[in-house]
């Protein structure tokens, strides 16, 4: 009924879709950086899409599987393998107990998600299992996984679902199908990230506005779950202005006086006082979460209505995907 961490990796934490409802008390939202990948991983193992899974960053952990379990691995390709053999992603995998699940070099993206049927048996804090690293609450003891941690699973014993292969393939039983995720999450070099105007867009100089969408911006090394600091042309206000603090959201692109924009992400503070030049659309946050430090992106403007249409289309796709997985799993 558990998984034991035999090697911690760089940064693995338990995340769900975030801690909502407490921002007015200063409690940050947290949650998966690439929420589409986590939701798909959950759907593949029959969980509610809001269930918490592991968010694995760049260098993954090694996990000893101590009871039979049904898992799915999605998101960036960090070369997951069972007993040293590569296993497929975007599919349900039944892993027999006594196996070792590990990760290798990063092939695409930088964040993988692992969901297990039934989820992890950990308590919610403020209605969420997400780990709030700086606040030291939620997840596994309020922190990233460490060597020798034992992650308890909610479901005592899982038997192999009938739709999975009858024989072990590279250490796992798996399905003949996988989900087509490419409309939801993709991994391209120098991706275009779509934005709508930020609350203080009009305060920026014409030159800054033009540079913002014409020049590439590089994700700097000082980037983490809280936000991506971007290197590119310096963005300046027409005149110096002190703003009062106000709420920010996931995807707010704020510009401190040094002119280098910061894209606020899952572990952002609830409020900020820097001017916001743009807002990354919700549908493009997952692809941004898969961009590594050192890689570049381009921003492009769309209208609010276009952003809303894309949002609703992606939700429709997830809905269809859920139906398809359910059908394929009952055959």
């Amino acid at each position: 009924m558990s998984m034991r961490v035999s090697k911690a990796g760089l940064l693995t934490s338990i995340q769900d879709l975030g801690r909502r409802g407490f921002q007015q008390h200063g409690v940050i939202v947290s949650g998966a950086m690439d929420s589409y990948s986590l939701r798909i991983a959950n759907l593949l193992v029959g969980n509610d899409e809001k269930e918490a899974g592991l968010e694995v960053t760049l260098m993954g952990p090694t996990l000893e599987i101590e009871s039979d379990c049904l898992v799915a691995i999605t998101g960036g390709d960090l070369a997951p393998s069972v007993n040293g053999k590569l296993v497929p992603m975007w599919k349900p995998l039944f892993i027999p107990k006594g196996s070792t699940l590990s990760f290798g070099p990063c092939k695409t993206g930088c964040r993988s998600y692992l969901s297990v049927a039934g989820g992890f048996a950990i308590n919610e804090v403020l209605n969420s299992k997400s780990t709030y690293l700086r606040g030291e609450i939620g997840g596994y003891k309020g922190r990233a996984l460490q060597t020798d941690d034992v992650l308890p699973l909610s479901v005592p014993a899982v038997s192999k679902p009938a739709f999975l292969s009858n024989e072990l393939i590279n250490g796992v039983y798996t399905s003949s199908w996988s989900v087509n995720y490419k409309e939801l999450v993709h991994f391209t070099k120098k991706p275009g990230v779509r934005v709508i105007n930020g609350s203080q867009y009009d305060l920026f100089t014409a030159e800054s506005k033009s540079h913002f969408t014409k020049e590439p911006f590089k994700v700097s090394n000082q980037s983490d779950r809280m936000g991506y600091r971007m290197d590119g042309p310096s963005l300046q206000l027409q005149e110096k202005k002190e703003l009062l603090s106000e709420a920010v959201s996931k995807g707010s692109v704020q510009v401190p006086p040094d002119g280098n924009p910061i894209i606020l992400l899952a572990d952002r503070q609830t409020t900020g006082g820097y001017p916001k030049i743009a807002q990354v659309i919700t549908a493009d946050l997952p692809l941004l979460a898969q961009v590594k430090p050192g890689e570049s992106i381009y921003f492009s403007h769309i209208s609010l209505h276009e952003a809303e249409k894309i949002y609703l289309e992606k939700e429709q796709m997830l809905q269809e995907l859920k139906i398809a997985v359910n059908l394929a799993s009952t055959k």
Partner: protein
Amino acid sequence: MNQTVTKASAVISPLGDSALVITFGDSIQYDIHKQIKTCKDSIELNPFPGFIECVPAFTNLTIFYNPLEVVAAVGKKQKKEFVSPFEVVSSIVQSKLENEQTEKELDHRTVSIPVCYGGEYGPDLEYVARHHNLTTEEVISIHSEGEYLAYMIGFAPGFPFLGGLSERIATPRRPSPRTSIPAGSVGIAGMQTGVYPISTPGGWQLIGQTPIKLFLPEQNPPSLLQAGDIIKFEPISKEEYQEMQAKEGEK
């Protein structure tokens, strides 16, 4: 830019595709705070389908919503018709604003925060006193005689943005921030005073420390202080501090 000016002269604008901001003014004023609080209470009391949460600030109120749920609650004439979640929530908010009575006075809760000023608990108290040609006792009495309104909670869990600091002790931030400030520190930064609920880096002038906890993750609400509270600081001795700290630890 999509913007709507309401009857009550509030402006509604989008914050991305899943939130909107209702702006009531552009400066820190009690009257604006009152309008924000009234609007927040009215929305929270009668949440619309898809409402997630709202966050009050000095001059505005941000409302977070789930666009899918917002749209699902609106009947469509045709399946393919596009309904803008922002426009749906905007019109809900607008009608709330139009029916609101802002004449009503707010009920403020008063919260007293015990503070041990100076010494190891307030390493910058003497600096603040020297900066204003005051004695440390005078700084303590000016700070603890004040009544402070919590306009908003943000920056860190349970951290209050307080208004009402006397200009007589307003002091600029330290030239370089400390890498870590202990939880409970009471500080001054310009015209602001506040309390740090968790240990973080910061450049505030630290004049004291409270033994009580401001961030309470096991409780709902998880913050001792709420926007709209009146805060008072009550000086305590080192002995009282240690006694209270021991009691807090048992909780």
